């Protein structure tokens, strides 16, 4: 009889069905479609390292660019890449990835190209730091010229600053190049 009450109650109420165009919203913490921000990526490779199903990998075009590749058909949406990305370049959006007609084609394979920049000092091609990181590092406008340096030149510049602190007469040979 309790069953009868339940089902007759169902009959009197409107149905709980959502139309195909009006589906339930996904929770904001849902781990859905992956996005990659090439401007933030430093190509450190952490995401490829932590990815259990090996959905992410990097390819290099030496001297020109580094490409970040992602195959959604191999992703298990665990979110480790987002969690471990030091510059927050990867984000799993809270929307449902749509179905596609081909596994190899549109939408299932993402490629994001990170263009290398020549170092303003030595000319070596390198992955530029994300703009936010640069702003944090050189917030005071200490040495704007260092913004375009490659990592090695930054290291050189930092040590040069250190040395000038110890030897105030500034006997550092300008133009001393690091070994590449």
């Amino acid at each position, binding site marked *: 009889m309790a069953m009868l009450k339940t089902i007759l109650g169902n009959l009197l109420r409107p*149905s*709980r*069905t*959502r*139309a*195909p165009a009006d*589906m*339930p919203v*996904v929770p904001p913490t849902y781990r*859905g479609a992956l996005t990659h921000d090439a401007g933030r990526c430093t190509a450190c490779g952490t995401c490829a390292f932590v990815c*259990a*199903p*090996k*959905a992410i990998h990097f390819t290099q075009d030496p001297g020109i660019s580094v490409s970040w590749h992602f*195959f*959604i*058909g*191999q*992703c*298990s*949406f665990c979110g480790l890449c987002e969690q471990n990305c030091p510059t927050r370049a990867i984000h799993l959006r809270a929307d*449902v*990835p*749509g*179905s*596609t*007609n*081909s*596994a*190899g084609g549109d939408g*299932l394979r993402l490629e994001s190209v990170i263009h290398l920049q020549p170092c303003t000092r030595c000319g070596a091609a390198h992955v530029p730091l994300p703009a936010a990181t640069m702003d944090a590092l050189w917030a005071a406008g200490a040495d704007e010229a260092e913004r375009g340096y490659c990592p090695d030149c930054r290291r050189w510049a930092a040590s040069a600053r250190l040395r000038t602190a110890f030897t105030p007469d500034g006997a550092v040979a300008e133009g001393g190049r690091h070994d590449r």
Partner: protein
Amino acid sequence: MNLIERVIAISRRRSPWICRLNAGSCNGCDIEITPLLSPRYDAEQLGIELHGTPKHADIVLISGTLTLRSRQAILDIYDQVPNPKAVVALGSCPSSGNVFAGSPLVLSCSLDTVVPVDVWVPGCPPRPQAILDGIARAAKLLEDGATKSQLAKSRLAGSQPESRCGRPS
């Protein structure tokens, strides 16, 4: 005659009967099919019916990694589905093997090398609305005569995918 063909084509979209095939899945995708039949998503509003036998099905939902054992079963069941038919691959596993890729008993390759797949639903597991969307898409393909099996039949080319994956045949 043309009218009857048109009605049949519309019926294919309006009445897609599905058959579920677990090729070695962790059951995640299969569990996400169950809500399709629940009051919230109610696949019956699109005319979708879940059938146990491939003989009654139009759309085969294949979930899970391909294993050495399930490969032949997939082929057998696919051949039992009467034409016209469509295949929907659920989740990441059929397209690559996902985290199981590289295991000794798993064929670390796409389902496309075994049967022609029409719609891929990404997700691990996909949400029910994504599955519903995938089925609706496959049903639309059935109406247009644009599923891979229908196209292969109309071209009269024996473009059955050669099952080269995993082992030499």
